[in-house]
């Protein structure tokens, strides 16, 4: 029997009879309407309509489809996971949020609630932060995908009434020299994606005038088929402007760009695997960004929040108007009535359901009390953008949609926001890789230069300079340090004119570790983000988690996800760094296989006085150089093994208790103004960190390698290139050395050498010279690979 019938109305409007529909029929309906709903969800909806004794309409089912999608409802993170050790009731609840709840930090202002995580900056001011993924669209159309990804996350910040002050981006590509003939059909070349993504982020961020201040660029074979694009945004807001009091009778105001056929079914697309047809079939889901439209929105929203004219706000992202409107209504226990005819359209011919779920960019949704409506609309007009009242909130608990004066949908909001829970199966089997047996190289200097020239370590100037990181005049510690443009550990921003308080942003990710062990990968990422933040003087750190994983319906992908979540709970808790926001992007699979499990940790710290911030460049000849932390034979997933084509097994672990102990002391030393420079040890270990700090400051180094604290006797190459966590290089002026050592007592640290005025890096081992390289050669090796014309 045909369960879908067209209504008598002149426009696209279908009635769907779900009564007693069989599984096959349900699947058939989903297929006809292009829905991504699972059978379990379809049955749930069918039963809901049975109880209500009514027929469904196409637009109603489309609404369920949007709301239940992985992208909007996070069903994997909220659902059940059956593991060999038992059932987990929600990864989010059992690990991530649990960590936050148990830490219970009083400075967390609003977490895991709104569009962004919000923490205190001062008594009156708060900082909001959000990081998003935009992988699938960027794989299809790198420029537009990345640009609209950034545009979307900026709207998340606008969506908590905050004023955006900075952006971040973390990008993962296949190797730029990947052979063309090995690319499967439909997969674009890494260098095409690289240029497109960077131009897209740059063009959007620069045009809207928000500096992009921190990020990372990673290259690995496993990203060839699945490019990863994370975009983040940070904003500040006065707490009293954080208005959330939508009431019955308030208007639903849609502001910004017009609604078009672009971006329809973006959500379902983002929650599905990429195939070779994605390029053509997914086309409407990829969009062209218009940063100037968003710039206008930003100005208007700032004024509206300053004058407290709105009662609520949210961005329009995944799921389009349907999600924004229904979520708001449900959040305030209200109902809503929308007149779809009022929505300004780009395209002449759009079906009502298309208008309702279109994800056209640069739109925001405001709730406005009747007395302020006129004023709000005028503010948008003055910025040369549109705002329209498209409906009103009521207390019905229903979303009622009208089109050409016909009621075309009546959706029970409760059923929409309490979807059936999914159950996933997890089974993590640790892989075994070859632990290489390498000869000890004779020329360590040559190896160091090769390490510096590897894509993952080499200078990312070509990326960073494409982004304006100075606009707004608040960037106190910049991504690139000084005239030699060394890699700073974190960015420091000074967002308030009348205060010296600063915001510190850093990030950590270690995808190669994740191929070996997702638990220690996550632990390492947390440690890296945290120690980068500490290194410049940050503290009171909040974390964001962004998971990019393969298809969670495979038990092994799910298993590694569980491992990573466990580490988030355990390591994060020991660091007392609460998670305040995050996002997951699953189903990153391509004809080349799943994406490397990639957890990005973003750390947001504060620094009470930006004038005490520490950069990574050496400052003064004659000062002492210290290493903090212990070096271990942990080269699994290291750049050094990678140089020889190996992955290895011995992945770096994290001794969280000891790490946090030394970090706290380092902060004390920084606050006592004892620290001249500080650089974190990460990719390429000690050797690379020494080279970077040295050529950035234009000063030499002489160290004795035997002074480095080790867990066991180590080969010199391993000692130099091991990527053990929780280590930092610290420069202390000679006359402060004693005081510094006193503070660091009780931690693993050691003075390993001195800063010299000779422009060279000299490493001795038991008085034997094992490496001596002029700084200009090191910097050349580091800068060359990603420099030059594009």
């Amino acid at each position: 029997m045909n369960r879908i019938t067209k209504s008598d109305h002149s426009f696209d409007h279908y009635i769907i009879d779900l009564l007693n529909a069989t599984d096959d029929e349900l699947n058939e309906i989903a297929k006809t309407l292009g829905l991504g709903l699972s059978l379990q969800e379809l049955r749930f909806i069918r039963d809901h309509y049975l109880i209500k004794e009514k027929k469904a309409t196409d637009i109603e089912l489309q609404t369920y489809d949007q709301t239940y999608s992985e992208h909007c409802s996070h069903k994997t993170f909220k659902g059940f996971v059956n593991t060999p050790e038992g059932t987990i009731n929600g990864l989010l609840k059992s690990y991530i949020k649990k960590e936050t709840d148990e830490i219970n930090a009083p400075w967390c202002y609003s977490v895991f609630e709104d569009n962004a995580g919000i923490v205190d900056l001062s008594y009156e001011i708060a900082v909001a932060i959000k990081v998003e993924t935009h992988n699938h669209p960027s794989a299809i159309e790198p420029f537009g995908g990345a640009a609209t990804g950034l545009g979307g996350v900026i709207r998340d910040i606008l969506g908590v009434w905050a004023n955006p002050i900075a952006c971040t981006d973390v990008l993962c590509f296949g190797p730029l020299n990947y052979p063309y003939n090995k690319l499967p059909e439909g997969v674009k070349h890494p260098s095409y994606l690289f240029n497109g993504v960077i131009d897209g982020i740059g063009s959007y961020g620069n045009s809207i005038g928000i500096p992009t201040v921190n990020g990372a660029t990673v290259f690995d074979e496993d990203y060839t088929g699945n490019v990863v694009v994370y975009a983040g945004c940070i904003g500040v807001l006065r707490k009293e402007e954080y208005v959330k009091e939508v009431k019955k009778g308030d208007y639903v105001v849609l502001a910004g760009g017009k609604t078009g056929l672009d971006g329809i079914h973006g959500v379902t697309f983002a929650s599905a695997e990429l195939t070779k047809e994605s390029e053509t079939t997914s086309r409407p889901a990829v969009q062209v960004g218009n940063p100037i439209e968003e710039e206008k929105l930003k100005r208007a929203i700032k004024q509206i929040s300053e004058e407290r004219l709105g009662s609520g706000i949210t961005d329009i992202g995944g799921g389009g108007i349907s999600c924004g409107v229904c979520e708001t209504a449900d959040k305030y226990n209200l109902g809503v009535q929308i007149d779809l005819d009022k929505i300004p359209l780009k395209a002449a011919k759009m079906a009502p359901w298309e208008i309702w779920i279109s994800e056209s960019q640069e739109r925001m949704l405001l709730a406005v009390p009747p007395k302020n409506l006129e004023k709000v609309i005028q503010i948008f007009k003055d910025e040369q953008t549109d705002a329209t009242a498209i409906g009103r909130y009521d207390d019905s608990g229903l979303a009622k949609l009208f089109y050409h004066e016909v009621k075309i949908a009546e959706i029970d909001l409760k059923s929409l926001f309490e979807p059936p829970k999914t159950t996933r199966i997890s089974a993590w089997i640790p892989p075994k890789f070859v632990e290489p047996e390498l000869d000890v190289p004779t020329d360590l200097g040559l190896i160091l230069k090769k390490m510096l020239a590897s894509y993952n370590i080499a200078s990312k100037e070509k990326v960073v300079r494409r982004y304006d990181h100075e606009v707004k005049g608040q960037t106190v510690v910049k991504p690139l340090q000084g005239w030699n443009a060394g890699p700073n550990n974190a960015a420091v921003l000074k967002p308030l004119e009348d205060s010296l308080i600063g915001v510190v942003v850093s990030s950590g990710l270690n995808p190669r570790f994740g191929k070996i062990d997702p638990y220690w990968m996550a632990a390492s990422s947390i440690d890296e983000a945290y120690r980068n933040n500490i290194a410049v003087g940050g503290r009171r750190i909040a974390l964001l988690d962004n998971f990019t994983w393969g298809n969670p319906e495979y038990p092994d992908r799910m298993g590694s996800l569980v491992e990573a979540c466990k580490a988030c709970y355990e390591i994060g808790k020991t660091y007392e760094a609460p998670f305040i926001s995050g996002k997951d992007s699953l189903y990153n699979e391509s004809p080349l296989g799943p994406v490397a499990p990639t957890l990005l940790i973003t750390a947001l710290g504060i620094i009470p006085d930006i004038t005490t911030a520490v950069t990574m460049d050496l400052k003064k000849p004659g000062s002492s150089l210290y290493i903090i932390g212990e070096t271990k034979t942990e080269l699994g997933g290291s750049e050094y093994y990678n140089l020889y084509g190996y992955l290895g097994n011995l992945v770096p672990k994290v001794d969280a208790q000891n790490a946090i102990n030394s970090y706290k002391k380092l902060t004390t030393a920084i606050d006592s103004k004892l620290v001249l420079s500080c650089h974190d040890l990460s990719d390429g270990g000690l050797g690379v960190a020494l080279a970077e700090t040295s050529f950035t400051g234009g000063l030499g180094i002489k160290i004795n390698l035997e002074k480095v604290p080790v867990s066991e006797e180590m080969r010199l190459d391993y000692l130099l290139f091991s990527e053990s966590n929780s280590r930092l290089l610290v420069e202390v002026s000679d006359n402060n050395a004693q005081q510094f050592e006193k503070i660091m007592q009780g931690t693993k640290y050691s003075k390993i050498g001195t800063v010299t005025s000779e422009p060279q890096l000299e490493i001795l081992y038991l008085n034997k010279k094992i490496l001596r390289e002029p700084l200009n050669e090191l910097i050349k090796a580091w800068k060359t690979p990603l420099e030059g014309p594009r």
Partner: protein
Amino acid sequence: MKRQDIRVLLMRAPGTNCDLEALRAFRDLEVTAELIHSQKLFKTKNLDDYNIIFFPGGFSYGDYVRSGAIWAKEMEYRIGKELKAFVEKGKPVIGVCNGFQVLVETGFLPAFNGKSIEPEAALGNNTHGYQCRWIRMKKVNKGNCRMLSEIREGTIIQNPVAHGEGRFILPPTNLVKLLEKLYENDQVVFKYCKEDGSPANEDWPINPNGALDDIAGICNPEGNVLGLMPHPERAYYGHLMPTWTSTGLKKYGDGYQFFESIIKYTEKNF
């Protein structure tokens, strides 16, 4: 006139985005500075209330067509007469980055023989694409640009640049003659230079965009309209300088003298 009576008009359009730094600088110097949407001015047309007009950087109208072009033409059409009258009174008009582009597109710069109808110069695509980096520029103006007379000739200033279209160029058919004229009129104000002040010789990245003869900023023959690509407003405070953690922190950075000079000049002469 008294400092607190000085009124600065900062204009903005959709996509202007370096306005708040500039506003902050003027306010720090204790003058009255107002940031106004150009649409509003198109209605009131009252430029006469102001002593200084400042066009901030950004991407006005997305820099579509050409950087600054759309805003420039719109302005010319709507308040062209009023702007021209303002300039002819000798009052300072300054454009930074996108503002410079606007002044070139409206014909207020270089304005060899008064405001031109069509642009006489262009800010073309950078030789190395969009770049955000710190540069050094030297003040080479011999005194014609009186609003900067507080900055000694030969002073080297560190400022950031951030643009994709900022390569100063003149028409190829008449290049040599026009360049000569630019120097003859003492219209060249800032040139990109090396650390020791020697010429960049169009070498990238010392000259970050490939500008003709390393020109970073120019003024009109009368000296009261000034445009430059680098951003003094982003180097206003000491903690914004690129090496403050190693060279020591001062309250103000290299951009301070730029704004201070303009204000002092206005104080003395109006």
